[in-house]
């Protein structure tokens, strides 16, 4: 059917268009659709006999999927181990609907809290002491593979801890807690992330066993609960009340790098030295090429040929020679060419023929004999001939030879001197390279030792502050690998609201916040805002961190306090220094 063409159709009046606008209806449809989707997801899970249950909370578009198996005696699930980053199950909870983002997303990867690796014999178990003084107690036969079979041999335990707001920001672990549609943020008394691997493959905790982590926490209050992060439901799951042992004070850990493989990079200086070191072998090779080239470019010295006196009785030829082509024959001017005894084809009749052409070319012994090619029509005869002189010509040639031989000796001596000089220069350069190599290697070793020591000092410093305070040991009973937390939910700060504009260094350029972290200084909590507005309690103290275009910007507590006090929404921020390489430095930068 042909398409209809309307010309000059009457436009629809604005009033009519507006009368169809119904945003409330749109939102209702959206909510209804979301709930239906949540229901169908839940029914899908049931059909798959998955151990999830979906709780649909009214029309508030909030759907929480609770993962029951966590911390319960059930067969191992893959979900709580390696799939943490990739888990993308759709959940309509407002904080958890970042469909296109990883659930755990460190804002800057270099700041992320690194894992420490330990090895343990599965059949023996053991107690691992972490640098923070925390203990990881692994019973015998604690691991099974994905078929549920006991594992024997070395198991690699990867472990890390999160103590403060900087660790929370750096790790990208979401701290939003959704309890039956009520959103809150978790205030942490400490968090652990523990994984197990054998030959790079994840292993699971034996359902009949549990790993106990005695975690050293600086947060002594007893209001905390144990939670485990369910990366499929994208929510924290309450496990139990915290079981803490109060008042234990510990010495700083003496754990050295030899006890644990800490995944720390080389220092920037080492990297630079390594680069310089790697640049030397190519220089050595290049220098060799230059040297060889220079030697080859030295003037060639041609050995003069000593004239030979003609042998009586030998057959001879008189020839015109192009001395430019055969300079060594200059000594044989007016020479005759004696036919060598090796010419089997020679007979005296050859001398009787008038040859149409006779050519001399290089003989088998260069500079000593020549190949004489005689041609007459089709006939070609080749003879090896030797130049020779007779009488006065010989004497003259001998004199000339002697003079040239003297020149030759001088030239040889000069060449040898030049070669020697070039060789010395070359060897001096090579020696300089080797010295440089050695110097750089020594410096690198020193730098590595210094760096290692600095790292250890830094680690000790980090935990010194913890150990110098009153501490409690919090017990994590781990039955599945993953992230566990000792927390208590806290509501978003209330009192004031603000739509901040983040200005770089008080300049005219501002940044667009993808995520705003409001770091509370009175509690170990970070409030995340994805919205343009933030809320805060004017009586509390905060610093602030803004993620924009893959960069972090900070506003310290003094500046932020001033902005909040003056209700000034233009908040000055500074880009996080490139020298900040870990969460400890981030903590310092935030002034926590």
């Amino acid at each position, binding site marked *: 059917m042909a398409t209809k063409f309307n*010309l000059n159709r009457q436009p629809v009046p604005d009033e009519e268009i507006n009368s169809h606008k119904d945003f409330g209806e749109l*939102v209702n449809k959206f909510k209804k659709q979301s709930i239906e989707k949540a229901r169908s997801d839940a029914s899908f899970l049931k059909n798959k006999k998955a151990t999830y249950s979906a709780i649909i909370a009214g029309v508030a578009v909030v759907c929480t999927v609770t993962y029951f198996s966590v911390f319960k005696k059930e067969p191992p699930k893959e979900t709580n181990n390696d799939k943490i980053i990739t888990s993308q199950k759709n959940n309509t909870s407002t904080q958890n609907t970042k469909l296109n983002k990883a659930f755990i997303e460190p804002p800057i990867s270099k700041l992320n809290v690194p894992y420490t690796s330990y090895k343990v014999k599965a059949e023996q178990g053991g107690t691992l002491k972490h640098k923070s003084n925390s203990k990881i107690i692994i019973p015998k036969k604690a691991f099974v593979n994905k078929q549920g079979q006991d594992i024997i041999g070395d198991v690699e335990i990867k472990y890390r801890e999160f103590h403060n707001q900087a660790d929370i920001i750096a790790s990208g672990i979401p701290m939003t807690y959704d309890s039956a549609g009520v959103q809150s943020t978790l205030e942490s008394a400490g968090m652990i992330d523990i994984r197990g691997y054998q030959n790079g493959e994840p292993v699971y905790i034996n359902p009949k066993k549990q790993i106990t982590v005695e975690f050293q926490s600086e947060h002594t209050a007893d209001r905390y609960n144990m939670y485990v992060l369910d990366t499929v439901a994208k929510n924290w799951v309450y496990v139990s009340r915290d079981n803490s042992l109060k008042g234990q004070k510990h010495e700083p850990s003496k754990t050295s790098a030899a006890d644990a493989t800490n995944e720390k990079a080389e220092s920037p200086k080492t990297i630079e030295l390594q680069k310089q070191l790697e640049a030397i072998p190519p220089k050595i090779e290049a220098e060799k090429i230059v040297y060889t080239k220079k030697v080859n470019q030295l003037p060639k010295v041609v050995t003069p040929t000593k004239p030979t006196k003609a042998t009586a009785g030998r057959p001879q030829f008189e020839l015109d020679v192009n001395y430019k082509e055969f300079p060594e024959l200059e000594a044989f001017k007016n020479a005759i060419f004696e036919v060598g005894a090796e010419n089997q084809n020679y007979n005296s009749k050859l001398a009787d023929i008038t040859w149409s052409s006779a050519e001399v070319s290089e003989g088998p012994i260069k500079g000593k004999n020549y190949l004489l090619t005689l041609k007459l029509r089709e006939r070609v005869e080749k003879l090896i001939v030797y130049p020779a002189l007779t009488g006065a010509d010989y004497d003259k040639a001998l004199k000339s030879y002697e003079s040239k031989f003297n020149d030759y000796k001088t030239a040889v001596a000069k060449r040898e001197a030049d070669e020697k000089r070039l060789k010395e220069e070359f060897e001096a350069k090579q020696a300089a390279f080797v010295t440089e190599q050695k110097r750089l290697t020594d410096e690198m070793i020193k730098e590595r030792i210094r760096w290692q020591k600095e790292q250890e000092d830094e680690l000790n410093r980090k935990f010194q502050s913890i150990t110098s305070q009153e501490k409690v040991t919090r017990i994590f009973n781990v039955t599945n690998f993953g992230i566990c937390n000792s927390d208590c939910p806290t509501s978003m700060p209330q009192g004031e609201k603000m739509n901040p504009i983040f200005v770089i260094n008080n300049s005219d350029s501002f940044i667009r916040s993808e995520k705003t972290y409001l770091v509370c200084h009175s509690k170990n909590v970070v409030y995340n805002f994805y919205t343009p507005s933030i809320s805060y309690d004017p009586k509390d103290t905060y610093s602030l961190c803004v993620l924009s275009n893959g960069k972090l910007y900070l506003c310290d507590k003094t500046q932020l306090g001033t902005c909040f006090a003056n209700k000034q929404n233009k908040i000055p921020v500074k880009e996080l220094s490139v020298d900040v390489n870990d969460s400890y430095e981030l903590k310092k930068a935030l002034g926590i």
Partner: protein
Amino acid sequence: MLLDAVHMEFSPRYHHTADMLLDEQLIIEAAKQNPEHFGPLYDKYYKQIFGYVYQRMDDKDTAFDLTAQVFLKALTNIEKYEYKGVPFASWLYRIAHSEVMQLFRNNSKLRTVNADISDLRNICEEVEEEYMEQYKGILMTVIKDLPEDDLQLIELRFFEKRAFKEIAEILNLTETNAKVKLYRILERVKKTLTKTSK
């Protein structure tokens, strides 16, 4: 051909300053968190999207229904929306384009072409032909018989007076590609007009 000519008044609705884009982006981010915050975007673009949909059909009720469908899809998928430096409108138009095309695939009878006589004059000017009354019928026939993709380009450029940048974003083409394609369509239109006038 004067494809870049500015004698046609193109819709200024699409053009946004950096501040406007920022404001819009902030609303989008808020809407990602809470669908209630989608309101300003709905208000801002409802009329435009309805206009786009209704431009391609006769049935007003269907156009209103489809417009509602476009916004529901937008709200459902707003999480997936990524800011790429262009107004949110281009994303909405893409959804609208897809919904309209789906509707026509299901029921091609609903497809109509709607234009003003001034639009036909503009096409004549573009192909450097003086508009004559006799061209009206020829142009209407040529245009409605165009393949859907070509018709889209003519509609967007001449009947809706959109800039090439916007056309390219709606149709998921490069700006150059949109220009080249339109140039070729106009060449064919010109040939038909020249042939007929002889």
